[in-house]
């Protein structure tokens, strides 16, 4: 007998579980199918999830307590012209300044496995079923209509809708004729090392910042400019990730010998970059090495971008839909956004009794209308680094890096971020309170490793802690929440023109940036003692504060009764 579900989700990675959770919450009979033995076993990544993923992603992530390795305050770029001569520039202008940092962040670093497990548990708690160690080998089509999946043992599972969250290779979507295999120049292979390091050393040496290395191709300290993501270093809690990635094919049809190249870049940077050679190398040892590819340039090719993301009875999300971003090489936010949209459309379609392509087109419309997805998959900054190399112009390289991964980011990311902000405020102005609480809750979570399903969520709070900060927080945030609620009708109205006016934010930034840059440079030195003092005070407050202060739903700090659910078997 064939099993029947409302929704079958292929893959329990970042996108799959988010979609399954929403469908299950809506009362749909939902099944996630995952090929690995444990959820997250096969998900390999960087990984910094940029802040917009949390602000505008699924509610349960924003309002919950996921596992983090470290908040990150921004990027320090090493622009290397001659590594042997020590000729390099540093651009560290894309960082959240103190006192906002480290509580207000640029993003959060995390390992994929615990994060994906956390999400899958949430989906299972919501009522979704999960089958691990199960590979989907095909999609069932009846007269062109997708009506379920085929498993490796030949058994069939039927569903009203399939949500395909199989990741970047898209083997099933290619097999079903919904999408085509990507050309190798659109794919970047990432070689990743995981180094263990003492937290105290990490706090001192890398702190909260990511390090990106850019250099002339002949320096051989990073993959060729614009032919991949580059070379990056991520600080985690007690470890560092080192990642370099390189497109599978270069101009002129050339397929590089990646094993040789990666070895060369890795050896050069770890033995020549002073930060690594002098500070990191003596204090770390390698724990893991792995690799995985991602679709770095799919959004830049009109033909590839045009490929379908839905068909009769099926919706593709995340990497499977070609949504990996070329801007920051962050695919998780888009996986979450698309999962959220796909679940909404699936719920609507099932309720309407129409799961055909004409109805599911809503999904594509909403993806196309998503300011952050569209900006992040089609930004040309990374690709343009090729021109800097061609001209071999230092100023050009510095300019491109600044524009993409320095303060210049604001000239192209501000409009989409503001648009999303006002879109959310228009729906519910009180979201601002949830955002603020999220920053504080997440920061406390990182300090105490107290994410959902861990015992430390129930830690004893010092009854003798100073309470003034808590009272101030309650008054400020509570007062603000009250005002937002009272003025909600007016704020909702104002959010409409603000949304449309956001369009001028990017061009305005272009004019303002030349003024902002020197002002920021001058002010940051004298203001830094004050910023540091205030920031330390906030951190001390968050460290000791009653966690319920930062909860969105009271009582969330209680450990889930299903905390011991075994995700290993179905």
């Amino acid at each position, binding site marked *: 007998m064939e099993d029947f579900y409302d929704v079958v989700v292929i893959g329990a990675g970042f996108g799959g579980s988010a979609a399954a959770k929403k469908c299950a919450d809506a009362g749909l009979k939902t099944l996630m199918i995952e090929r690995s033995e444990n959820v997250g076993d096969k998900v390999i990544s960087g990984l910094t999830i940029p802040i917009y993923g949390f602000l505008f992603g699924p509610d349960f992530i924003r309002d919950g307590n996921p596992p983090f390795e470290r908040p990150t305050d921004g990027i320090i770029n090493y622009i290397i012209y001659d590594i042997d001569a020590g000729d390099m520039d540093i651009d560290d202008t894309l960082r959240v300044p103190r006192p906002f940092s480290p509580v207000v962040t640029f993003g959060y670093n995390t390992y994929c496995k615990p994060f994906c497990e956390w999400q899958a548990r949430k989906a299972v708690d919501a009522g979704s079923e999960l089958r691990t160690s199960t590979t989907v080998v095909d999609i069932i089509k009846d007269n062109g209509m997708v009506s379920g999946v085929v498993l490796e043992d030949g058994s069939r599972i039927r569903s009203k809708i399939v949500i395909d969250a199989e990741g970047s290779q898209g083997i099933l979507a290619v097999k079903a004729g919904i999408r085509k295999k990507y050309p190798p120049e659109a794919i970047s292979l990432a070689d990743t090392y995981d180094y263990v390091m003492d937290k105290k050393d990490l706090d001192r040496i890398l702190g909260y910042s990511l390090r990106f290395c850019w250099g002339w191709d002949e320096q051989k300290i990073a993959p060729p400019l614009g032919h991949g993501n580059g070379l990056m270093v991520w600080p985690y809690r007690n470890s560092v990730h080192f990642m370099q990635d390189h497109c*599978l094919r270069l101009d002129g049809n050339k397929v590089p010998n*990646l*094993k040789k190249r990666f070895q060369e870049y890795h050896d050069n940077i770890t033995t020549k970059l002073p930060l690594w050679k002098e500070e990191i190398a003596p204090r770390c040892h390698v724990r*893991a090495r792995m*690799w995985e590819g991602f679709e770095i340039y799919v959004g830049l090719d009109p033909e590839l971008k045009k490929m379908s993301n839905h068909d009769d009875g099926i919706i593709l999300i995340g990497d499977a839909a070609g949504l990996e971003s070329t801007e920051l090489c962050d695919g998780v936010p888009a996986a979450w956004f698309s999962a959220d949209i796909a679940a909404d459309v699936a719920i609507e379609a099932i309720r309407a009794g129409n799961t055909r392509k004409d109805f599911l087109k809503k999904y594509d419309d909403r993806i196309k209308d998503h300011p952050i997805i569209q900006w992040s998959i089609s930004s040309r900054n990374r690709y343009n680094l090729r021109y800097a190399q061609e001209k071999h112009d230092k100023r050009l390289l510095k300019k491109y890096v600044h524009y993409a991964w320095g303060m210049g980011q604001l000239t192209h990311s501000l409009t989409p971020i503001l648009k999303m902000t006002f879109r959310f405020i228009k729906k519910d102005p009180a979201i601002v309170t949830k955002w603020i609480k999220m920053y504080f809750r997440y920061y406390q979570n990182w300090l105490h490793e107290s994410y959902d399903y861990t015992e430390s969520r129930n830690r004893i709070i010092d009854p003798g802690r100073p309470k003034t900060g808590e009272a101030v927080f309650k008054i400020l945030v509570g007062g603000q929440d009250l005002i937002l609620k009272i003025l909600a009708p007016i704020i909702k109205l104002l959010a409409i023109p603000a949304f449309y006016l956001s369009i001028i934010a990017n061009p305005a930034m272009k004019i303002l940036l030349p003024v902002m840059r020197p002002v920021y440079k001058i002010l940051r030195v004298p203001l830094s003692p004050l910023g540091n003092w205030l920031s330390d005070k906030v951190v001390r407050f968050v460290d000791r504060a009653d966690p319920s202060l930062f909860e969105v739903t009271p009582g969330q700090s209680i450990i889930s009764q299903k905390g011991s659910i075994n995700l290993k078997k179905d």
Partner: protein
Amino acid sequence: MIKTHDDFPGVEWIDGTGDFIRVNSSKCTGCGNCMKVCLGDCWEIVDQKAQIKTLATCMECASCWYVCDAGAVDFSWPKGGTGYRSDWG
């Protein structure tokens, strides 16, 4: 059975994958692209045809499949619950 490899710490390979990558020799042009992009050293060229040397160090990235212009590499996933796994990705 679970296997590890000295060159790739922190990764485990669970036995029983089956032949999830196959080569169609009649289509293979022997260009060696699959070998060039494979970080697990899984490929070799014998008599001007690509052959899989081992799948024991394959991280299932599908790079060999992407770079095969001739369409000679048939890539699918290993049997559920087998193949590589890591806690550090």
